[in-house]
């Protein structure tokens, strides 16, 4: 396989999110799961916060080239993975099993990810993002490539009040700061 050096399946080394240190500073308790050091709990987490943010950078992301029959702007949930159409011949597959997807480029570590959830999730986005995420413009399963906090991103509406945001891996620390700053003002907390 030509591109195995893109695949995060090291032996011995631990895969780390670019937001690891921010999570630790916010009181995260970490544990290694499937080779990734992830937050499993936050000190003082309140269950009824109006909005939470979660580091989801470990999710597998695969870029698939070639025509597809997905509806533009809408992701499809198949076998635990989100199939997100970027262009008519480029698809981003998020989550799910790597080996179930033939002929892909592994871009897992090209994109960091945050899940922003709760009734105030859209208000958090409104503080740094010009995408129209109202239900009439971005329905559930809507997938929106576009600028987030002045940098390229993808926003996927997983559920009514639950959004997955992808952005460049190198911007993890920056994006955590932006999201935490916006969310905290609205009563938000980090969530494992």
């Amino acid at each position, binding site marked *: 396989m030509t591109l195995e050096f893109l695949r995060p399946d090291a032996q011995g080394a631990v895969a780390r999110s670019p937001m690891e240190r921010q999570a630790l500073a916010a009181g995260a308790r970490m544990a290694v799961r499937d080779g990734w050091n992830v937050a499993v709990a936050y000190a003082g987490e309140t269950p009824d916060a109006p909005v939470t943010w979660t580091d989801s950078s470990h999710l597998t992301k695969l870029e698939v080239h070639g025509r597809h029959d997905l509806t533009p702007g809408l992701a499809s949930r198949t076998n635990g993975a989100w199939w997100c159409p970027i*262009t008519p011949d480029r698809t981003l597959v998020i989550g799910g099993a790597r080996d179930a997807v033939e002929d892909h480029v592994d871009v897992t570590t090209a994109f960091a990810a945050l899940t922003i959830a709760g009734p105030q999730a859209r208000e958090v986005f409104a503080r740094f993002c*010009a995408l129209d995420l109202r239900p009439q413009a971005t329905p559930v399963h809507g997938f929106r*490539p*576009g*600028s987030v906090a002045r940098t*390229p991103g993808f926003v996927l509406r997983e559920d009514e009040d639950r959004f997955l945001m992808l952005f460049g891996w190198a911007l993890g620390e920056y994006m955590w700061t932006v999201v935490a700053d916006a969310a905290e003002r609205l009563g938000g907390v980090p969530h494992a």
Partner: protein
Amino acid sequence: MSFLLTCPYCGTREVTDFAFGGEVNRRPRERPSLRELGAYNYFRRNVAGVQREWWYHRSGCRAWFIADRDTRTNDVLMTALPGELPGDAGGAA
């Protein structure tokens, strides 16, 4: 400047989502004379009116497309992929 552009794939976004690629400027198909080469490299029409230009959806799908924009008002009359221009067999540049 805060007008909207419609990416042929992603739909309508703020202009700040995009990179401007300049007016469409056809590359010579055959070896140009030095004067033609200079004109191609350095001269632009820069019309006050509707102009056909390149845009790149830098913050989104990262696709290049063509827009007809009125440079006086920033009204965008049309956007399309280079191969799908109305009334054009292709070859925008």
